């Protein structure tokens, strides 16, 4: 049985490598806000209030491009709706927590933290304080996100654009799913999602980010039926 502290450190260690993509993305995210002419305090507030990289950039780009607040807010909601799926997966492991703890822990659920903690949960279902892993991964991502967006706001985009560091984002997620390429059912689901995301890329409100997972999950349900 692992202690809370050990679980927290495991959570920290599991997302630490992802800082290779989180930090440059945070810097870009902060710098873009300033370049678009927004008040630095407002740009930084997004990192605390929304705390979701892609949606923060889209929000600022839409507003600066003259879109209505309604469109900007809707887009954020659509982009972040994928968290509903993460929550549904995590609820199995967080079931026993008190309501207040559930409310608090929800704030730090983000892509990489969900991905790494969920992997750990699947292998260690019997641990009592599992949620400390999620706290470790989530708090780590939160702190580095705050620091890197702040750096981008204060220092500007000091990461040379020629380096194309935005490419680190798909790479970080490749690292997360690559071992599932061993399983044919997962490969089918991944390809379905990937191709759908390209097909629906121009759908309004960036909705490809939730349309393609929904299609892929339907395919997953079909695959499960065929496996029986």
């Amino acid at each position, binding site marked *: 049985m692992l202690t809370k502290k050990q679980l927290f450190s495991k959570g920290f260690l599991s997302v630490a490598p992802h800082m290779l993509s989180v930090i440059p993305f945070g810097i870009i995210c902060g710098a873009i806000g300033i370049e678009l002419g927004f008040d630095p305090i407002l740009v930084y507030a997004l990192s605390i209030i929304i705390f979701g990289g892609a949606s923060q950039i889209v929000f600022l780009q839409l507003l600066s491009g003259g879109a209505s607040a309604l469109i900007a807010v809707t887009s954020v909601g659509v982009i972040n709706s*994928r968290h509903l799926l993460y929550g549904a997966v995590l609820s199995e492991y967080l079931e026993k927590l008190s309501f207040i703890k559930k409310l608090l822990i929800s704030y730090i*659920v983000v892509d990489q933290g969900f991905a790494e903690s*969920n992997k750990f949960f699947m292998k260690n279902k019997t641990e009592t304080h599992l949620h400390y892993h999620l706290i470790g991964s989530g708090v780590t991502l939160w702190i580095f996100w705050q620091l890197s967006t702040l750096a981008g706001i204060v220092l500007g985009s000091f990461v040379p654009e020629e380096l194309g560091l935005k490419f680190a984002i798909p*790479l*970080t*997620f490749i690292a997360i*799913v690559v071992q599932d390429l061993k399983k044919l059912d997962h490969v089918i689901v991944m390809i379905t999602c990937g191709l759908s995301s390209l097909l629906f890329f121009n759908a309004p409100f960036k909705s490809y*980010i939730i349309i393609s997972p929904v299609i*892929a999950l339907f395919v997953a349900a079909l695959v499960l039926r065929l496996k029986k």
Partner: protein
Amino acid sequence: MTWLSIIIAGIITYFTRMTMVALVDRDLLGEKVKAVLAYVPSAVFPAIIFPGIFINDYGTFIEMNDPKIFGAIVAILVGYFSRNVIATILSGLTSYWVIIFLL
């Protein structure tokens, strides 16, 4: 106005994170739904990966000889065999840089 929309966007985002964890009773989900949920990572992350590789900053498809495709293939191979996140990201980035800066 901008502040108000940030706060509303923040509340909506928080609800996307909190609803399934704190408000929805897990027993409401049937066994079939729970089985399908095991595919969530495979069903979500390619929607971040594919556009990140195949679509450029201007929202159009890249050419098939784009260095990002090469970088992604290297990252997949290195990631698959090394099981190491840092090696996956760095191999993808460096192979991409080798092409854009050296070739």
